[in-house]
Every structure is written in structure tokens, then in C-alpha cells.
């Protein structure tokens, strides 16, 4: 008879959460009695096992009774598995020899029948005991952390993160798809609630990032491939060919001055202005080097022109320049790729794209911006008439099951900001049409009051339609905003000269592809998923990959900055520790049984399984493996087992659960 383990069973009351439904005294007494044969030498129940006193109970028993296994019956492992494992570790028992079974989320919280719930608790504990016998002492895997970091996305969140890490003395690759960093914030005119000039507060950070000795700025570049795992990622980056020799370019601007080809700038100017085929997106661009747009440049289309080359004083134009592929080693990655604005054309009854003087929020920002297409003058599409009445529509594409159900968080403040700017610059009458005014953060409510003071007309009602079908006197030449003022119950026709649609935020169009590239997931709406919505908003389930800013969900600039800094701090912590311990709960392939069918390779959600062509077997990368168990189930040969969730462990748990360890002769049919 093999040596029996010495098992301690601890049943938590969790106040009345468990004890209110399950008879915890009865359960622990039952365990002490009926599970003796399995090796249970002590069973206790206690009000709050997770408290220090509760943990000390376990530790005392381990030391005094020489326990070799521990089963805690309490809440979900999601919450306190680590607590109890650490408690055991503190008493000298390998943490992985402790099992936490849930008799709260899986029992007391979901049943009202107290008798049945108590019986179920017994079954759950019995399963836990049977299983823990087969646990092995495991050691966490330690992987080294490369001190370099990759930040993808050069908006305010990415810039903040990069600066924090760089200032701490570590190297960062900052990759940005556009020719310049700055993101959407560079397009805005003023920022709420302080009405700071957006570029004025952003450009110092941009310049810092551009000059920082610890930041390698890779603009006009994209990540193509990611291999490896936390601590040692190998990232392939494509540096697209600017057509400019950066070593020679001084940023003097003669090339774009002389370029004869005008192109509608759909990116930075939101289609409201033009740029040249060789261009920098805006004057304060970082880096200062322009880019040749090969799709529109006459040379690439017809082989002629080359005006830029002729006039460049430093001979920095290089039409033959090719994309450069770089491979870099990094320890951690921050994804800060931002958002795309909702396409207001989808709401056809608002007339954007059909009625000239309906503008989107981004278009309006460009109108207001002094460096924008109208020099900061708020005028209608004709380029010269100032509006006398402006309507600002909240909730365009947000809070609407027909488009996006979520609230985009920033549009109320944005709309108030617009109201202020219109009033200040044009003296026009301003109407804001809203469902609710969401001004929740610091100084936001005061900003709303400022707008009330300024005489903004607030009409509570979601705009039904914007039309040019004028009918009543005084409406000629105007846009009619049709809405119900819900506070008075009247249906209104509000004639305006200009309508501004406060469009919502959406995930980037390619967010699913980017998520797949980095091995993380998107929510149903398309935003990247954080590790825990309340307690861990910047980490993801994939070790080493962090998210910051709007890529995680709509938020304002302070929140994006905070997330960027938070992600940076997490990474700096890892870098300082030089190595990180990974959960040893993972899958392993038994090479002898592997037939090389590769089914597991494709089912792994974390791309953690490699295939060795020479040996024709698959291997699980322990650093990437999250222990989800998909491959274990998928393997037709049963060649994959999980450490920490082996077949033996699971089958024993099932047996313990179903048969309650009742000796065969006592068993009766259910």
C-alpha cells in the first residue's frame, strides 16, 4: 500500500456567503470522517479563510501535522488561488500542492436549496481531495526579460509610455504607422476642459520622444510578425520607404513647396484640405522628414517630374529607396494603436456627405485649428460664410443598437468644447442636442456650467433627422434639425446654418488582425481585452503584451496618459526584476505518442505550439502556454497532458465528485 498523503481540508464560511446556504460545520465534519481513507487528517471550518488568521490556520497545520496536501473549499480560484498557494509556500509546502475548490460561485451562490447545496459542497470537496493526491510539486518557470520594449502606436498614450520607460534608462522602439507621431491629438484644436491648445501640450512630448537617446523612433513603419514570448519577443518591423535619405534631409520644406501634385489629405486634414505628393502631415511633425506618397506621386505613376529631387539642396531625395525589414529583440510590448472615428455616412438621415454643411467632429477640429485648411476660421463649406446658427448633435453612432451600443465617453465634453469655440469665434447661436450630459471627470461638470453661462441652448432630444426640405418662413437656405425636445414634449424644427456631428469612437478597422498578430483578443465590439476590467486594465491575458489608451476602449486624454504610464510602470518593474516567473500550469507533448498531425498547432489560441519538422513532433512553448487545455482535449492521440491539470488529476476529481469516495459496498443508486 503506497504511502498516503496527509491532507488538510479547510472549509470557509465566507461570512454568510457560503455559510448562509451550505452547512459548513456538517461539511467539514463529514470530510474529517468520510475522507479519512483518502488521507484527510484534519478538517476545519472558519469564517474567512483568506484572512491572515485563516491562512495561519493552514500554515500551523502544515508545520505541526506535516501536511503534504491542502484543499481549501471557498471562493473561486480566480480570486484567492494565489493567496492559499502563497500561504502554503510560507509554511514550506510547495504551492502547487494546494487546491482551491469553489463552493461559493459554484454552489452557495447559485442554489437556494440548503440541503442539496450542502451535499453538493461535500461532493466538490471530495473531488478536490481525490485530485490533489495526484498533484506534483511544480516550480515556476523563470524567463529572462530583455530590457528593450516595443511600443506600437505613437499617439499620446504610446508617447507617454515610451517616455516613461526611456526616462528610467531603458531602450524603447516606438513604431508608428503614419509618417509622424502625434496621433489624433495632433489633429485637435483645443482640449477640454482646460481649452489648452492641443498641439502646444503635445508637441513638447513629441519633441522629447524624437530626441530621446533611449527611444528609437520608427515612423512610417508597421509590425509584420511577432515571435517568441514574454521576455524574449522577436519582432519583424517593416520600415516603409519614405523616398527620403534621412541622414541628408534637413526638413527645409523646399521639396513639398515645389511639388506640383496636390492631393486631398484624407488622413490628417480629414478630407478638408490638401497636401502635396511629398509631404509632412503637419508642420510640427516628428520626425521632420517628409514622405513621398508613391500612389499619387507623378514620378511613380508616369516616370516624370522629379521636381523635389531637382530642388532639394542636400540631395536627399531617393526614388529608388526600398522598404527596410528590421528584426528587433524586446522583452515586452505595449499596444497603443488608438481608435478610428465612426463613419457618419452610415447614418444617412443625418445627411453627412449629402448635405454640404453637415460636418463631422474631426472635420470641425480641422476647421478650428489655426494650422488647418481655413486658418482657424469657422466657415461653411463655401470657405467664406460664417455660420449664424450652429447645431451640435451628440451620440452619433453611439448608444445606438443600430450602430454601436456603447457610449463613446468623450463626445459630450467634445460637443461642449465645440459649443464654446463656435460661440467664442463666431458669436453664433449654438444648440446642443443630447440624450444625457456625461461630464463625469475632474472639472468636467464645471465646464458644462460654463457652457450654460455662455448661453448655449441645450435641447434634450436625440436628433431624428437633418434635412434641407425647408417648409416654414425663415428656413430658406438652412438645414433643418428635426428633434423632440423631451423636456417639454414638443417636436421641433430647428433651422441651422451648420450641423456638427459628434461622431463616436470605434476600434481601428484592422484591430482584429493586429490582435491576432500579438496573440491577444478583442471584445465583441472590437476593443482589445484587458486582463481584468476593474483591477488590471493595462495588462492582457498574454504575458508581456500590454495595452494602453483608446485601443482598450473610448477614453479621454488624461485616462490615455495614465494608462500609458501604468503600462510603462508594469514593464519597468519586470525589467528591474530581470526575470519573470511564469505559472508552471501548462501543457506538454509526450513526444513518443505524438503522431505529428499538427491539429494542436492550429487550435492554440496563444500560438504557443511549435512543430519540429525534423522530428515530426509538436512542442509546447512553456512560456507562451497559458494552460487553457484546448490542445489537451484536441489531441486525437491523447499525447498532450497538462502539468497542473493532467488527465489523472481531472479523472480523479470527477470520480471523487460523483462517487463521494463512498466505499463500493455502501454505494447506492442515485
Amino acid at each position, binding site marked *: 500500500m503506497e504511502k498516503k498523503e496527509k491532507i488538510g481540508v479547510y472549509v470557509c464560511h465566507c461570512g454568510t456567503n457560503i455559510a448562509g446556504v451550505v452547512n459548513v460545520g456538517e461539511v467539514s465534519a463529514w470530510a474529517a470522517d468520510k475522507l479519512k481513507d483518502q488521507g484527510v487528517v484534519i478538517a476545519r471550518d472558519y469564517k474567512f479563510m483568506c484572512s491572515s488568521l485563516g491562512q495561519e490556520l493552514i500554515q500551523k497545520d502544515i508545520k505541526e501535522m506535516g501536511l503534504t496536501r491542502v484543499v481549501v473549499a471557498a471562493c473561486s480560484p480566480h480570486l484567492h488561488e494565489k493567496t492559499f498557494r502563497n500561504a502554503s509556500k510560507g509554511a514550506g509546502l510547495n504551492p502547487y500542492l494546494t487546491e482551491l475548490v469553489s463552493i461559493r460561485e459554484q454552489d452557495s451562490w447559485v442554489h437556494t436549496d440548503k440541503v442539496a447545496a450542502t451535499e453538493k459542497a461535500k461532493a466538490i470537496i471530495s473531488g478536490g481531495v481525490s485530485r490533489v493526491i495526484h498533484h506534483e510539486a511544480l516550480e515556476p518557470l523563470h524567463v529572462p526579460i530583455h530590457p528593450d520594449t516595443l511600443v506600437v502606436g505613437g499617439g499620446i498614450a504610446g508617447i507617454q509610455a515610451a517616455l516613461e520607460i526611456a526616462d528610467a534608462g531603458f531602450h524603447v522602439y516606438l513604431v508608428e504607422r503614419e509618417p509622424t507621431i502625434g496621433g489624433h491629438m495632433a489633429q485637435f484644436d483645443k482640449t477640454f476642459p482646460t481649452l489648452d491648445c492641443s498641439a502646444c501640450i503635445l508637441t513638447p512630448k513629441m519633441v522629447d520622444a524624437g530626441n530621446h537617446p533611449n527611444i528609437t523612433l520608427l515612423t512610417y513603419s508597421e509590425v509584420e510578425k511577432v515571435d517568441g514570448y514574454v521576455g524574449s519577443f522577436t519582432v519583424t518591423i517593416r520600415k516603409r520607404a519614405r523616398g527620403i535619405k534621412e541622414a541628408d534631409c534637413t526638413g527645409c520644406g523646399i521639396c513639398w513647396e515645389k511639388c506640383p501634385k496636390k492631393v486631398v489629405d484624407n488622413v490628417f486634414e480629414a478630407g478638408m484640405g490638401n497636401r502635396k505628393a511629398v509631404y509632412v502631415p503637419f508642420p510640427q511633425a516628428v520626425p521632420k522628414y517628409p514622405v513621398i506618397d508613391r500612389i499619387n506621386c507623378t514620378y511613380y505613376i508616369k516616370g516624370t517630374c522629379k521636381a523635389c529631387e531637382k530642388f532639394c539642396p542636400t540631395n536627399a531625395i531617393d526614388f529608388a529607396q526600398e522598404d527596410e525589414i528590421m528584426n528587433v529583440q524586446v522583452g515586452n510590448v505595449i499596444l497603443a494603436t488608438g481608435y478610428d472615428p465612426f463613419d457618419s455616412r452610415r447614418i444617412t*438621415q443625418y445627411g453627412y456627405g449629402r448635405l454640404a454643411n453637415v460636418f463631422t467632429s474631426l472635420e470641425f477640429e480641422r476647421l478650428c485649428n489655426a494650422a488647418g485648411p481655413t486658418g482657424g476660421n469657422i466657415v461653411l463649406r463655401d470657405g467664406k460664410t460664417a455660420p449664424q446658427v450652429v447645431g451640435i448633435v451628440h*451620440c452619433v453612432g453611439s*448608444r*445606438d*443598437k*443600430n450602430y454601436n451600443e456603447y457610449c463613446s465617453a468623450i463626445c459630450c465634453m467634445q460637443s461642449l468644447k465645440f459649443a464654446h469655440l463656435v460661440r467664442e469665434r463666431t458669436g453664433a447661436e449654438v444648440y446642443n442636442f443630447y*440624450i444625457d450630459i456625461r461630464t463625469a471627470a475632474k472639472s468636467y461638470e464645471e465646464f458644462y456650467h460654463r457652457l450654460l453661462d455662455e448661453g448655449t441652448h441645450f435641447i*434634450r*432630444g*436625440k*436628433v*431624428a*433627422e437633418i434635412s434641407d426640405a425647408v417648409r416654414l418662413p425663415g428656413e430658406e437656405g438652412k438645414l433643418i434639425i*428635426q*428633434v*423632440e*425636445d*423631451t423636456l417639454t*414634449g414638443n*417636436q*421641433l424644427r430647428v433651422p441651422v446654418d451648420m450641423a456638427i456631428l459628434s461622431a463616436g469612437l470605434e476600434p481601428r478597422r484592422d484591430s482584429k488582425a493586429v490582435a491576432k498578430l500579438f496573440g491577444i483578443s478583442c471584445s465583441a465590439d472590437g476593443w482589445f481585452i484587458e486582463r481584468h476590467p476593474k483591477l488590471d486594465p493595462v495588462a492582457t491575458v498574454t504575458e508581456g503584451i500590454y495595452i494602453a489608451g483608446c485601443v482598450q476602449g473610448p477614453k479621454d486624454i488624461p485616462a490615455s496618459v495614465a494608462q500609458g504610464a501604468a503600462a510603462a510602470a508594469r514593464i519597468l518593474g519586470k525589467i528591474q526584476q530581470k526575470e519573470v516567473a511564469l505559472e508552471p500550469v501548462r501543457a506538454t507533448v509526450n513526444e513518443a505518442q505524438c503522431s505529428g498531425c499538427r491539429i494542436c498547432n492550429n487550435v492554440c489560441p496563444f500560438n504557443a505550439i511549435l512543430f519540429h519538422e525534423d522530428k515530426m513532433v509538436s512542442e509546447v512553448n512553456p512560456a507562451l502556454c497559458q494552460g487553457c487545455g484546448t490542445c489537451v482535449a484536441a489531441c486525437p492521440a491523447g499525447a498532450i497532458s497538462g502539468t497542473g491539470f493532467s488527465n489523472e488529476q481531472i479523472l480523479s476529481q470527477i470520480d471523487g465528485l460523483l462517487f463521494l469516495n463512498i466505499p463500493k459496498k455502501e454505494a447506492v443508486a442515485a
Partner: protein
Amino acid sequence: MTNTLTFGQEVENLLQAEEGEPLRNCIQCGTCSGTCPVAGFMDYTPRQMIAMINQNMKDQVLESNTFWYCASCYHCTVRCPQEINITELMYALKRYSIWNHRHKAGLVGPDFSEAFVKMIVRGGRSFEPVLAPSYIFSVGMRGFLLEIQNATELLLKGRLPVIPARIKRLDNFKRMIGRIIPMGGLE
């Protein structure tokens, strides 16, 4: 013990066959009322109706003309951000109103509807002249005369039916209706 239903629950029960989110999901945004082409003529806008139903204000709801003025154009329904089927709600309220014999005084809709339904039961097809008494006296003297003028012109141009059309299998048809609503209930 009978479980008395709230007015809101009664109305919900009348909306079984239709798809759409429950009325309690209404965020009172006002899109429906902003869209409704008839809102200006209603006692309460569609949005106000929903708020009142959610507050079980049965009397005010049934005493209003709102749902009798709904033209069932469905514009509110396609725009509602909470995907509530507002038009079907209006139908449900009409049904509730008719079967409980409760509606605002002076409305043409209820009488016209009953006349229409009886007409169909009688012949299976529409025959407009039979409907005239239910509304012709409510449009004022000038309206009355213009309506007579209209009818005459339609007649002269061959656009007014003079002989009521009847379907062939009328007996089957009547029994078919009887299987849904016993004939006495409709008369």
C-alpha cells in the same frame, strides 16, 4: 391567489408575436417623437406614451389620442436606438382600447375600425361606401360637402365600387374567422 398584472405587463402581453426590445429598455432619447410625422397632432408623443406605460399610468394612456393617430409608418421603429418596436406598441394599445371599450371621446378611429372589420367579415373584401357613415359626419360641413364631391367624381371616373365584392367561399371564410374570434365578439 390571482397575480394582478400591472398595466405595463398587460401591454407587454399584447406584444408577444412581435420582435423588439421590452418597453422598459427605453432611454427616453426622443428619436421616435422627433421622427414621427404625426407627433404634432398627438396629445402625448410616442416617447411620452412609453414613459407613461412604464409608470402604469393606464387612464392617461387610454384617454389619449396618440395611438389612434399613429399612421404605422414604422419610421420610429427603424430609428429607435434601443430597437423597441414602437409601431407594434401602438397597434397593441389600439387592440387594448377596443376590447376594453375605452378610448378618448370624439375619435373616429375606433368606430371606423369596427365598421371596417365588420365589412370584411360580411364579404371578405373591402367596399368603401359602407364605411362612410363612420367618419363622414366628423369632418365638418365643408369637409362633408367635399367628401360628397370626391365620391361623385370617383364614381364618374369609375373609381368607386357600387356593388360590394364578395369572395366565393364566404361561408368557409366566416367559419375560419369564427375559429379565432367567436362571431358574437366581433359584432
